[in-house]
């Protein structure tokens, strides 16, 4: 009997370590290498499926298709690690895009519009943060509310107008890569941001605090971490970064309309979860987000080249998402089953 309990206890410790996460290097390495294998597999499948796949023009296309979503996924990752969620990211993108278009048709110069849009993003993020931290409302409900609200404001701002006469020197980012590379500007910016986010999340006290909040926010508060303040700043950060994504999105399509990026919040969330970030907070890595974004982009593009209907791509996104939550869970389920059977066998042995 004593032995059986020891086994159970050990199981508990194992799964606890998995959940607390950021310290368990082993499981993280496993998750990221798994993602890496999936990425390589999708690259191979893409290459076999179409000779166009491994061309620099196509790399540009892949980058363009996921760049903005991947940028939104970065601050979202930190928010999810801290145990909250932000579903309003794509609406912030859409509102920023609309504001950009609105100010442009009212004759503002682009150099002035860009900082205004970024400040606007900060305000939108602040509203989310205020409702979540100051009023203590559940972030899921709050950001479903602001998802609708911000999109609604975008609609009021632009109505059914489509603004598309932006100067070519800006819209070039949708056609031409960063000189000397096959990468579009959005991917370049994503990689720089990912580097900054990665360093902050994994190598600074602030990053540690974010993980601590997600693991156990009460314990974090008692150990002197300013939980509310950090969450508030994460939401503001998310607002600014999403409005930056909105600027890039607008220029690359050379179009500002109110429903730009509608529904992309779900793509951003699925990249974050595919990256191995726990929906309960406390676990995840930025490198995972980079790999997940690349995987989603590569698979989507390979299927596109294989003439798979583009609207049905959700099938793949959803499937990946399910696999990504089931694989770690399966290990836990398996562990629990093993403990169960070991216990039974012991009981059987004693009886025999």
């Amino acid at each position, binding site marked *: 009997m004593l032995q059986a309990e020891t086994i159970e206890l050990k199981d508990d410790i194992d799964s606890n370590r998995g959940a607390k996460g950021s310290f368990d290097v082993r499981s993280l390495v496993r998750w990221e290498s798994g993602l890496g294998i999936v990425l390589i597999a999708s690259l191979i499948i893409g290459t076999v499926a179409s000779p166009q796949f491994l061309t620099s023009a196509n790399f540009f296309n892949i980058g363009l298709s996921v760049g903005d979503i991947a940028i939104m996924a970065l601050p979202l990752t930190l928010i999810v690690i801290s*145990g909250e969620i932000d579903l309003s990211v794509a609406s912030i993108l859409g509102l920023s895009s609309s504001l950009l278009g609105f100010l442009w048709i009212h004759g503002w110069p682009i150099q002035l519009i860009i900082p205004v849009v970024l400040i606007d993003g900060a305000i939108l993020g602040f509203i989310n943060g205020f409702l979540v931290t100051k009023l*203590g409302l559940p972030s899921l409900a709050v950001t479903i509310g602001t998802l*609708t609200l911000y999109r609604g404001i975008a609609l009021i701002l632009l109505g059914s107008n489509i603004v598309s006469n932006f100067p070519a020197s800006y819209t070039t980012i949708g056609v031409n890569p960063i000189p000397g590379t096959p990468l579009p500007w959005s991917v370049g910016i994503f990689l720089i941001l990912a580097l900054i986010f990665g360093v902050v999340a994994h190598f600074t006290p602030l990053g540690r605090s974010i993980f601590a909040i997600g693991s156990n926010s009460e314990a974090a508060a008692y150990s002197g971490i300013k939980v509310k303040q950090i969450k508030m700043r994460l939401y503001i950060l998310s607002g600014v970064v999403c409005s930056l994504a909105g600027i890039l999105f607008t220029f690359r399509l050379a179009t500002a309309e109110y429903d730009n990026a509608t529904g992309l919040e779900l793509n951003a*969330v*699925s990249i974050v979860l595919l990256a191995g970030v726990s929906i309960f907070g406390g676990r995840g890595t930025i490198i995972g987000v980079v790999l997940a974004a690349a995987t989603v982009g590569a698979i989507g593009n390979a299927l596109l080249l294989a003439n798979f209907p583009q609207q049905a*791509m959700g099938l793949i996104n959803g499937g990946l998402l399910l696999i990504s939550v089931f694989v770690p869970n399966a290990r836990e389920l398996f562990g629990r089953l093993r403990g169960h059977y070991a216990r039974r066998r012991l009981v059987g042995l004693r009886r025999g």
Partner: protein
Amino acid sequence: MTLIEQNSQSNPSNSGSSVELVPSGASKFTSLVFRAREFGIFGILFIFVLLTTAIKPRFLAGQNIKFILIDTTIFALLALGETMVVVSKNVDLSIGSILGLSAFVSSNLYQQFHHVSIVFVFAVGIGIGLVLGVVNGVLIAFGRVPSLVVTLASLYIFRGLDVLIVGGRQVVASSLPSNFLSVTSASFGAIPIISIVVAIVVFGGAYYLKNYRSGRDLYAIGSSEQAAGLVGIPIAKRVFTAFAISGAIAGLAGVIWASYYGTIDSTAGTGYEFTVVTAVVVGGVAIFGGSGSAIGAAIGALLLNTINSSLYVLGVSAFWDQAISGLLLILAIALDRGIGLYLAKSLRKRSSRVAS
């Protein structure tokens, strides 16, 4: 670490939890306050209707009422299923996709087979919903994966299936028989018959949730999954059933949707999940489980549709509609939070008075 622990950890802001500790008379008091909440929404609805009618009397014309009611019927039905899921501290984001799949496949039967019975069409729609709901339920209740993630994934997957099945095709109203279209067009005065039927279903569902043991269990699970497990409630079974029923209801809503709109392609019901969650929360169902009623959710749906229609009648640009419903959702949860804090405070006062 079990799912239960993780769940309770992920949302420390559940203000209702302190309520159960207080004995007797208090429960009457809490139910009174929450009923006041339902009356509150009804009051807002009433004021809205009154103001709009005062400015534009044609708001209460028969045809307009009919439009509002049929739209509400579809959302109130979806809100019933969503309420069952949300009171158990889960969420179902896949209902829009289930509705779309069911709407196309069921109405497309008329193009494939002539003289197919309308009962069969409804059965197919509900059946599709049930199967998809069961898939959700198995993954969530037995696979122990959070419902937000599973239904986010199935939102994509079911829509993807829909696109693969539908392709570029479309069901058009002219291919549908008149008895199928009359499901939503038949009315009793200004009130569509389908709305009466659905109202009865919603009342039945709300009664079941409030008064039957398996219904009460869902509230218990939503209040505290750990406590529910300790008193022997079969959590997995109940949560599974809630998702299966929510799916079946979305399937039924899909057939009604097809009958009402007549033109069905692969985009039917896109984005409905957020509207329904908004209706449910505006109707007083706490997003983190444990309280609220299906009737409140239906009134929430009615309120959203009424506002939508009154903006149109008043000549306010329809562009304002989204912003208003988003704002309404935020106000509703802020109000709930306020009520929760007030309740906790006044209950503490009451119990200290009893003690002294």
